[in-house]
């Protein structure tokens, strides 16, 4: 069976790569800025690149905030990518304070300008980094989730200056470490998933994550 995936198009960023990764895995993809189509979606993807305020504004001017929030209550699969993941939280402090979609409790803060030893390190966090189970969890934690079949330390591609801080520990599915400091790599709540990294840019491992999303 071919899976139908709806990708939210709200005027910012790079939809093509996300769509290509989905079609590569056999999905039928539509992109839309129509709230009705979002509500009808079987699987919804919220991509995002750029500034938080612009992105939220892009959703607001198209009347998509309510539709996405309503969709999230249906239990159908949802995947936020990068900024799309950050928008799942309550708010962000990126250049001021901005309200998010509030799908997962928590906020978005700037990545620390120093590493764990208080030495300056480079921000944005750009590059490949490894996925780990949150402290106290083992590999079984990823069973039956978006990360099914992945091994600890699988490498994926990150590029971000801000980081999601979910307030509920159970909403963290995978972490990574930058300069020794913890970064939320994947957050989840029921069928809502958010990846800080770009699965569509993370080679075969990213494609596996997309495939898992189609099988949720």
């Amino acid at each position, binding site marked *: 069976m071919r899976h139908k995936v709806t990708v939210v198009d709200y005027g910012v*960023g790079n939809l093509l790569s996300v769509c290509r990764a989905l079609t590569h895995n056999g999905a039928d993809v539509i992109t839309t800025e129509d709230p009705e189509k979002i509500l009808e979606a079987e699987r919804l993807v919220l991509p995002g690149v*750029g*500034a938080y305020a612009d992105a939220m504004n892009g959703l607001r001017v198209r009347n998509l905030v309510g539709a996405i929030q309503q969709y999230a209550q249906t239990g159908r699969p949802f995947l936020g990518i990068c900024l799309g993941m950050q928008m799942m939280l309550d708010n962000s402090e990126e250049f001021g304070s901005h309200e998010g979609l509030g799908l997962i409790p928590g906020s978005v803060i700037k990545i620390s300008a120093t590493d764990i030893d208080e030495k300056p390190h480079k921000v944005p966090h750009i590059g490949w980094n490894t996925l780990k189970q949150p402290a106290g969890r083992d590999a079984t934690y990823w069973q039956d989730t978006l990360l099914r079949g992945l091994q600890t330390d699988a490498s994926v591609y990150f590029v971000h*200056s801000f980081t999601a801080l979910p307030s509920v520990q159970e909403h963290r599915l995978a972490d990574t470490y930058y300069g020794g400091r913890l970064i939320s790599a994947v957050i989840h709540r029921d069928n809502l998933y958010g990846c800080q990294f770009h699965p569509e840019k993370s*080679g*075969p491992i990213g494609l596996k994550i997309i495939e898992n999303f189609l099988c949720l």
Partner: protein
Amino acid sequence: MKNLRLIARLDIKGPNLVKGVQLEGLRKLGDPNVFAKKYYEAGIDEILYIDIVASLYERNSLFEIVRRTTQDVFIPITAGGGLRSIDDVRKMLRAGADKVAINTAALKRPDLISEISNTFGSQCMVLSIQAKKVSSGQWECYYDNGREHTERDVVEWAQQGAALGAGEILLTSVDREGTAKGFDIELVNAVSNSVAIPVIAGGGMGKLEDMNQVVTEGCADAVAMAHVLHYGKLTVGNISKEAVQKGFRIGRDFSHEA
């Protein structure tokens, strides 16, 4: 452990992958999409396309090449050459690029860096700098493939670019580009230690030791390679293996890929 990204640089002229020496004397090497796919499958971390004639002739054939790349290459793509406005950048991101590399247009109007950074995020604004050595410890910014000079100091420009919102610096040594004589380590070190954003070292990679040196002594965060890959002097496999042996943590770790 030092992180290192390995980047394949593909210079484009019209529909072709080309390669010159010191950005001059171009040879056609073939279909860039074929090369990009080959490097992706071999495990390269990122692809970098530079349309080297676009800013001379004010045209750009790169959009179609990038669009085609996204069909079978699922790693980050940076594209540059001839992009001069927010609209150009938007079009390139829509074509499937993740980042844009800006040189000439930023030199002519530095505020473009802030505009791109504010609109699309600093992570997609790569400031491309063509550096030519003037004297010991001093380099000048060039554009149009090292033909036009600016009297602008490279280190100062890198700092200004970072302050304006660039997310990365692609630093190409015009003197070393295509020569396979090794990177200008002094240049890479000077820039890398003067900005808090990642620096991609380019121009001069000829052998494995060059990579080690530019990372350990030059403090590069990433290495852009063209010549050695396109002419098959080194493979992505050789290079990755060497990087791991030297204790660098490179991007894609094959032991975890299905």
